[in-house]
């Protein structure tokens, strides 16, 4: 077997194992949440008989291990069950929310990743001069301000004062792409500002690190232009750390944006998860948890594989 194929298979197997471990943690975690599902659904005025009926109906009397394996079995077959609180099919409602979350993350990534890398390169080109300092100062400021604050500031200026984009980011299938983009414009700006600094700084650091190598000096002595050196010699050798930080930020854009969702009333997965946690709707929480874990593990897997492929020493082992 080709060593790369072997490596990838190994990583994949490891990823699946991790996901399995995460599923156990999620199941155990939801089991020890204080409060009881039946009580949460029926409220304070519930009679003991109604509670007993509800518990039987929900299968809460079965041992935990039995519940875990039947849950995992159904999950693997794509059956996520129905929400306890409103009886809706979880796969269906979750699917729509997941699509929205990915839509927002996609557009935020499309703008922020190239922008961050470009700014990083620019900062290296003008290292320690005013463009470098300006870029660092601005991006570090935006990452230091809480994201809801940036959201409110942008809403106030962009939406209320200038009337440019919508302050409510509720999207639905009946909207055209242009309408959807108009609705998510401000959240995308917020997310871009939040993730920019991390990726930009990492790009800058990784390339600067490479720039100290002897072969860069050689290229310089050859009379090559600075930007060309960065593009042809420094960047390819700095890909691994950059991809890692990009993937971490992509994962954040998918699983960590609940605050932005709340501020803009965006119908994504974060808000959906929080609502169901507070109502102790365990099947939904478990499904969301597992999907988030899968996204996180998957993106990190991609980062690993890309950095292996980007490294000739790993690509052509002796």
């Amino acid at each position, binding site marked *: 077997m080709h060593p790369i194929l072997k490596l990838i298979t190994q990583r994949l197997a490891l990823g699946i194992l991790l996901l399995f471990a995460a599923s156990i943690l999620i199941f155990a975690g939801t089991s020890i949440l204080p409060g009881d599902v039946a009580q949460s659904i029926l409220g304070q005025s519930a009679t003991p008989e109604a509670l007993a009926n509800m518990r039987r109906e929900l299968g809460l009397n079965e041992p935990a291990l039995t519940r875990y394996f039947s849950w995992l079995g159904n999950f693997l077959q794509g059956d996520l069950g129905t929400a306890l609180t409103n009886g809706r099919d979880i796969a269906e409602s979750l699917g729509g929310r997941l699509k929205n979350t990915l839509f927002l993350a996609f557009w935020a990534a499309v703008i922020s990743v190239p922008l961050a890398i470009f700014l990083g390169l620019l900062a290296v080109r003008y290292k320690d001069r005013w463009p470098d300092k300006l870029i660092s100062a601005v991006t570090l400021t935006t990452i230091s301000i809480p994201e809801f604050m940036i959201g409110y500031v942008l809403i106030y200026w962009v939406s209320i004062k200038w009337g440019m984009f*919508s302050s409510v980011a509720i999207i639905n299938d009946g909207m055209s792409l242009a309408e959807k983009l108009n609705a998510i414009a401000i959240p995308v700006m917020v997310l871009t500002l939040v993730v920019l600094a991390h990726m930009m700084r990492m790009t800058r650091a990784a390339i600067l690190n490479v720039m100290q190598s002897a072969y860069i000096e050689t290229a310089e002595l050859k009379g090559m232009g600075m930007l060309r050196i960065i593009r042809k010699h420094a960047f390819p050798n700095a890909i691994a750390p950059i991809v890692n930080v990009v993937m971490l930020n992509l994962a954040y854009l998918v699983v960590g944006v609940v605050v932005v969702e709340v501020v*803009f009333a965006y119908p994504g997965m974060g808000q959906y998860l929080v609502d169901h946690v507070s109502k102790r709707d365990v099947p939904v929480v478990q499904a969301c948890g597992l999907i988030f874990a899968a996204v996180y593990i998957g993106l990190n897997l991609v980062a690993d594989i890309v950095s292996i492929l980007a490294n000739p020493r790993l690509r052509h082992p002796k």
Partner: protein
Amino acid sequence: MNDQLKNMTADVTKGLMTRREFVGRAAALGVTAAVANSMLASSAEAAAHAAPKRGGMMKIGSSGGESTNTQDPALTASEVPLNNLRAWGETLVEVDAGGELDFRMAESVEASADAKQWVFKIRKGVTFSNGKDMTAEDVLMTMQRHSNEDSQSGALGIMKGISSMKVDGDNFIVDLEAANADLPYLMSDYHLMIQPGGGMDDPGAAIGTGAYTLEIDEPGVRHAFKRREDYWDSENRGWADEVEQLVLNDATARTAALQSGQVHIINRVDPKVAALLDRAPNLSVESVAGRGHYVFIAHKDTAPFDNNDVMLALKYAINREEMVDKILRGFGTIGNDMPINAAYPLFDETIPQREHSIEKAKEHYAKSGHDGSPIILRVADGAFPGAVDAASLFQESAKAAGIPLEIKREPNDGYWSEVWNKQPFCASYWGGRPVQDQMYSTAYLSTADWNDTRWKRPEFDAMLNSAKAELDNAKRKEIYSQMGRMLNEEGGVILPMFNDFVSGVSENIGGWADDPNGPVMDNKSHIKCWLKDA
């Protein structure tokens, strides 16, 4: 109404005087706030009814919605699903802004002389949105569903006093175990939306007799409705062609959406920003004194709160004016340690208001012989908006009287199941009820599930029951007055303030009228208002 009042009312309607000024000046003329408000409501209604317009799409932005919501009226407990119910459904009767019955699915109601049997005459010619005629049979089945122990209905408590129900032609007849002069008011409970076949087959189908049909149902995100051409009361309600409710739980998101014109009406404006928002162009902030109140509740059967001198010390120590000023920013009124205020029918204005008095607090605290160990008050942000700050204010003023009040912060999550109604002393809130009887029966009857002050007095229960059976309003008022005084003196409830309902309304909205029964015109703004530019 004297001429001066009449002129002032006209000024408010024309926008020459604010509601607040009006209530203040009316008070100077010896008119109580409740009467002044209802006068305004009726005159505003008259002005608003000048030119209703049909058409357009009305958007409301509401807090109080989750992705776990359903359309089942039995399970409705927060504002977003309640607004949904009001759009597609109707109850037998409603309570109007003046506290009178507004007949909906019932045309009229009559009581037997002993107030034990009530006959509702059901309106004819009303159809459900599925095309079927609404009959007394549907009413009966609806009520049966909510009386069922397994129904999980929020109206179960209301239905408990009913011994039997039956249909006789077009009449729906209710027999009670004990007399209750307020029964029609109980039937205005929002859970009791009349559904075809009682909603037994599919409780969440959203089929009712309301002005709108549900078109899009995305819980926690948005709900869209279309006007029914065949709605029976289209002369008075259902003006916009379409209504869309957006779930905006974040207070800033809500005000931003109103300011940028993406919604026409929002509920629950944060008192902290209400005055600022009111200055923004193209919108107004509407506030109406309601029956909801914020409380600190102590269990009367647990030491040290079983010692009434400790209770009185705490009651005198709390600074009510300061709380209304700082916690409600003036959007509220002070309370008097009883859950009833002037917004209730049959309220006795002559009950003396308890004043803030450090001397009296000291005196009662010394008399109580309390050992000086810390009195623990449990509180969470979710108990009511500003609860933690209110508790700190309480702690400070108690300290001045030498009372060792200690605050224990609790997490919001699980507060209502682990702390409220379990711990001996905590912060909480109550939404109002349409009548005094219902408020007392829910929280101050010995046997009530939600008796969160453990107030168990046979003589109080007896008074409540005799008031129920009393059809003479003067006598009822006298009984309620005695009950109020008793709670004020001996109860476990410390009630510093009644909160106003504060809403934000776009200039483009016509027909807004204050309604003390609930927020955003008792959650009927979207069916009673219209768009001026439609």
